[in-house]
């Protein structure tokens, strides 16, 4: 008899399952936060889980020359194929169960993709997976750059950040002039079939991600979680501060933490006012070392607007029938 899947809410760090399904021995950076996302989602989902990984840091680092740290079955898929792989796996399991080839039971299907694979290239595949009624979870682990191929800018890179595509220069200080996409909000607004959508940070608030994964897996349909992963490599900070950076992202309000459970939106962490100035979060990263006060002010003003002017603060930028498009 297969082990039952537990979806109970975890209350406190002492209650977090001790068993690892993503084990030691992966070629990730010192202090890698995306490795924490892998570790935490597999802890929450347990042994009856199939993980699907698109190309990116968490594919290459975890299959270093014919070795793996995964305990649960894991499969690599193409850069933009996170959604299709989740959909195909989930549909395959349902078909096998209907035909009686495998026993009827709940098997978690979790696909994860990086910000380039998920928010840029794989967006259409994710969109189509979220239109179905299949039971699947897609996790977008977002470290705001294509860090696997040496830190190129993506659609998720914060405005002003230095990457290998957007190096600062003597004539032009800011090369990353695009604002980060609002992927979770976009997917929530456009996919009536999606059962659960959330944003999370693996380290803050503690256990939050584990419980969001459990909620997503028990939602009974397609689900999507967007995590912000501080990246010591591309963000250029000391690896010991990954937890601190995650906390500052939440407290400063630059990354709103919320969930949309069967169509009802709720902030899961409301940064206490006055919010921590975003400068405190940005100045701790080498990729923003070239920013001047006016740049910090600009980012602060956009973040403030997200919390004060948006129809649903931090989630949907619509008001009075117009979509806000700030300059």
């Amino acid at each position: 008899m297969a082990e039952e899947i537990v979806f109970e809410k975890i209350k406190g760090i002492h209650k977090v399952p001790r068993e690892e399904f993503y084990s030691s021995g992966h070629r990730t950076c010192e202090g890698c936060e995306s490795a924490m996302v892998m570790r935490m989602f597999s802890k929450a989902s347990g042994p009856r889980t199939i993980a699907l990984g698109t190309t990116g840091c968490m594919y290459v680092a975890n299959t270093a020359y014919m070795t793996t740290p995964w305990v649960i079955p894991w499969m690599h898929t193409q850069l933009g194929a996170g959604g299709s792989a989740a959909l195909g796996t989930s549909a395959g399991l349902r078909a096998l169960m209907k035909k009686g080839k495998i026993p009827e039971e709940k098997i978690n299907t979790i696909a994860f993709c990086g910000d380039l694979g998920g928010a840029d290239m794989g967006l259409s595949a994710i969109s189509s997976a979220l239109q179905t009624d299949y039971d699947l979870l897609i996790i977008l682990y977002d470290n705001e750059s294509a860090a696997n191929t040496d830190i190129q800018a993506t659609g998720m890179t914060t405005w002003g950040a230095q990457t290998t595509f957007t190096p600062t220069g003597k004539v032009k200080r800011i090369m990353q002039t695009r604002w980060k996409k609002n992927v979770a909000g976009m997917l929530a607004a456009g996919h009536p079939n999606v059962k659960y959508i959330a944003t999370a940070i693996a380290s803050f608030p503690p256990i939050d991600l584990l419980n969001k994964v459990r909620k997503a897996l028990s939602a009974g349909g397609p689900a999507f979680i967007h995590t912000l992963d501080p990246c010591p490599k591309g963000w250029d900070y000391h690896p010991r501060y990954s937890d601190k950076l995650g906390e500052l992202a939440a407290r400063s309000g630059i990354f709103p933490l919320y969930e949309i459970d069967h169509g009802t939106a709720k902030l899961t962490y409301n940064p206490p006012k006055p919010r921590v100035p975003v400068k405190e979060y940005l100045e701790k990263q080498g990729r923003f070392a070239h920013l001047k006060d006016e740049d910090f002010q600009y980012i602060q003003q956009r973040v403030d607007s997200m919390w004060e002017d948006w129809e649903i603060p931090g989630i949907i930028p619509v008001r009075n029938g117009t979509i806000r498009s700030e300059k």
Partner: protein
Amino acid sequence: MGKISTLLDEVAEADIKNVEVNYRGIFQKTLARKICKTLVYAAKEEERTGFSYGRYSDAPERNGVPCKYFAVVAEMSEEDLEAEAGAKIEPNDVNVSIVVDDTMVKGVEPWGFSGIRPINEKVKLGGTLLVVSERSPLELLKNVAKKDFPYKIAVVPGKHSFSGLWVYKDDFTDARVLGALARIEPDIVGLEALRKVVPEKLGAEKIDALNDGYKSVIIKSIAPGEGIDWPYSIPTLPKWHEFKEGIVVKSVARGGRNEDYKRFTTRTMRPVIRFDTCIKCDLCWYACPDECFDPTPDGLFDVNYNYCVGCGRCAEVCPVPNTIVMVDELKFENNDSPYHEYKKDKEAYIEWADQKMGEKRVNYPFVTGTGLIEENVKKNDGEKG
């Protein structure tokens, strides 16, 4: 025909001078590149050809993972040199192997199935292992594998420079290493050529550092057989026909770890734990991205040093001052379980841990490139390590 071509190969190889820089991924990438690039510019000043390149298989580079950068210099045309040395992942042997972080002398394992290799593996007969270190060549030799031919270990006195990526902490290590190189192997690059190139490429203020490197380098000849018997074996990669269908890799058994890639050579510092002051909050275990902490029956957590990469997150989240402190990796001889030592003899373990932690603590700035500061703290009082 075969004989002639081998002979030609040997002639060609003798003319080519190879230098490698062993560096810590990302932290020292800019530093390694600067050393190799400047070296090639200096060789061009002496009307020789050269190029520098990173080791392809190190990509994607990860923080702390041992990586390599190379410089090749020869008296031949660019086309010939490229044909001889351009299409290699790394040279077969090197004249000088530079190590910019001395903890790498304990061995390097850049990826799975590479095995933990001795740091002097590529040093050729009469070549030099050049280390930036505060330790003496003989102290370093206690970790270095023996070779069956004579070579040299040289030390540029100094702390390892974790100079960072976007923000480059310029502590002049690049110029000092180049100065030392000119002293060790004037055939590769002369001091005069470097004096011309360094001000232009690295900055005028670095001339003194260049001269200082030239003067202060300590060189020690190592006889055949000096060093240690290398304790690690080099694994062989599976052949293509040994792969399972669909390139299937066997998963880790429940409760196990990836036995084929223990990655402790990524570490420069290791967490030392005072189990007696632990309040069993579980935070270190929760925060570890490498799953190194093993729960014990009495609620404490053992550390598996075979997998710890020394990121320091456990020390950062630990709420009790001086309970988890990061300590220089070269102070340790093995990866044995600290919990077992503690269980064997509690008092002896606490004394040992205290002695390893010492009185000094490192103050870590957020942006690595802004430099580490060492400061004195009173024990169990004030800032944690």
